[in-house]
């Protein structure tokens, strides 16, 4: 039985090396396919990082009354922290608010002077809330408008920014959906192209396949080497694609970082090298072997 499999594997390797041009063309198409799929993965990573960054810029500030006691503020803060929608809260004390105000206006003598004259700190503390998702500010704002907090809350800037936040949130959702849709369509096209190329490669062997049948070979014995060949296409293509991504991300990484900010694709590629490679390898070998399997079926009917 092991002789049976070693024959199949050997025949697959021999066909792979002998078919020269067909092999080269098929590997090239597979590389393009995997490259498209890899690019989709990378651009999704980039898109997600850009969208997350934009989303991070959205926040809601709760301005507290100057009369609000510190302990009440801390209670409010911990209540907010317990909300599932809330990602992060920054507490700015009255002192901090004042010093940052002074810092911003240190060149304006009139303002600093009048503040000095005032003696007391006129600024209230504030809580800066980041929701996990831009759609969740609405419910955070609802929570805050409960009468229990009205004694300490001066105003919430959500209500001024409501329209902008909602619009942005819509844009983010649409972008995510569009990104997913486009990725899916491109991936399907790439897979179909690879499948057809392998079908064509096997089509060139259809006469041989029928002869193999006529000299008494079992279907699995004929099919085996083609599947091995398909797997080899996948492995080689995954390697080539990984290599091709190196200079590409090296070149594109800083540019994309400059344009969109956030993530450096090259660093991402290097730090996720193995996961990335395993995914491409998996897709490549499955695509290669499965395409061979499907394509050869019709020629095994003799």
């Amino acid at each position, binding site marked *: 039985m092991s*002789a049976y499999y070693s024959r199949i594997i050997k025949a697959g390797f021999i066909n792979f090396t002998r078919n020269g041009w067909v092999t080269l063309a098929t590997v090239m198409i597979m590389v393009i396919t995997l490259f498209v799929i890899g690019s989709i993965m990378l651009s999704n990573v980039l898109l997600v990082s850009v969208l997350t960054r934009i989303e991070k810029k959205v926040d809601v500030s709760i301005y507290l009354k100057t009369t609000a006691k510190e302990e009440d503020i801390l209670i409010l803060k911990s209540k907010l922290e317990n909300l599932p929608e809330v990602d992060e809260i920054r507490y700015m004390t009255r002192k901090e608010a004042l010093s940052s105000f002074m810092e911003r206006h240190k060149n304006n003598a009139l303002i600093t002077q009048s503040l000095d004259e005032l003696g007391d700190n006129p600024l209230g503390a504030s809580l800066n809330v980041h929701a996990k998702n831009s759609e969740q500010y609405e419910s955070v704002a609802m929570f805050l408008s409960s009468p229990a907090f009205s004694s300490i809350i001066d105003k919430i800037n959500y209500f001024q920014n409501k329209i902008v936040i909602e619009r942005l949130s819509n844009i983010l959702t649409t972008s995510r959906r569009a990104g997913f849709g486009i990725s899916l369509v491109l991936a399907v096209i790439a897979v179909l192209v690879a499948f057809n190329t392998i079908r064509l490669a096997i089509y060139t*062997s259809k*006469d*041989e396949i029928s002869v*193999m049948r*006529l000299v*008494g070979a*079992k*279907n699995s014995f004929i099919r085996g080497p083609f599947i091995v060949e398909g797997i080899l296409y996948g492995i080689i293509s995954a390697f080539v694609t990984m290599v091709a991504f190196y200079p590409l991300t090296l070149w594109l990484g800083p540019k994309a970082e400059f344009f969109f900010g956030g993530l450096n694709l090259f660093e991402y590629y290097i730090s996720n090298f193995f996961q990335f490679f395993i995914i491409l390898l998996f897709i490549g070998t499955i695509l290669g072997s499965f395409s061979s399997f499907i394509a050869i079926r019709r020629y095994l009917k003799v």
Partner: protein
Amino acid sequence: MIYFDHVSKVYSPTSTALDDVSFTIEPKEFISIVGKSGAGKTTLLKLLLAEEKPSSGRVFFESQNVHSLPRTAIHKIRRRIGTIFQDFRLLASKTCYENIAFAMEASGSTDEEIEADVPQVMDLVGLMNKAWHFPHELSGGEKQRAAIARAIVNRPDVIIADEPTGNLDPINTWEIIELLKKINSMGTTVILATHAKDIINSLDKRVITIEDGKIIRDAKRGRYVL
């Protein structure tokens, strides 16, 4: 051993290759099928190998109706038949040696058997020095001899030889015919389709003559008459 039961093959309305053909081949027989070009000889052999399906009638190999076998079981019968195709049908991507070895690999021979038998049959047909040539690097006669070697290497129960000497010079032709006779004398059934008059007359064996898809003569010790 082989039984054709009222077999007809109509490829298309304008091309009837076989018309109600019935005959029986006994084990160890050496039977020649003769007829003009286009008479239906190759079609008859294709039906035995289940390469084509009959339009009507049945073909038996021993007690098995060849065409009622599922596709996944037909190889069991094909392994018992060695075929020399009229158009050789060597595997273009395999060398001469590999072509012959393939038939053995396919039937599950061990590596030792393959390494012992393949060189032996290649020597027998005189192709030893072309072992690593691909089919497109062989002459017509060499291809034919490779096809012969592939057909006999598994020591099949039946050998189908469709015009096996069409590309050979007279000396090679006689060698191949002698080889087929020898294989037959060791117990293998041989079915030979040919138009070569001299061969038929010298064989002095059973001859079936077909014309336009019909058997017009079946003679025990026949001669080539058309």
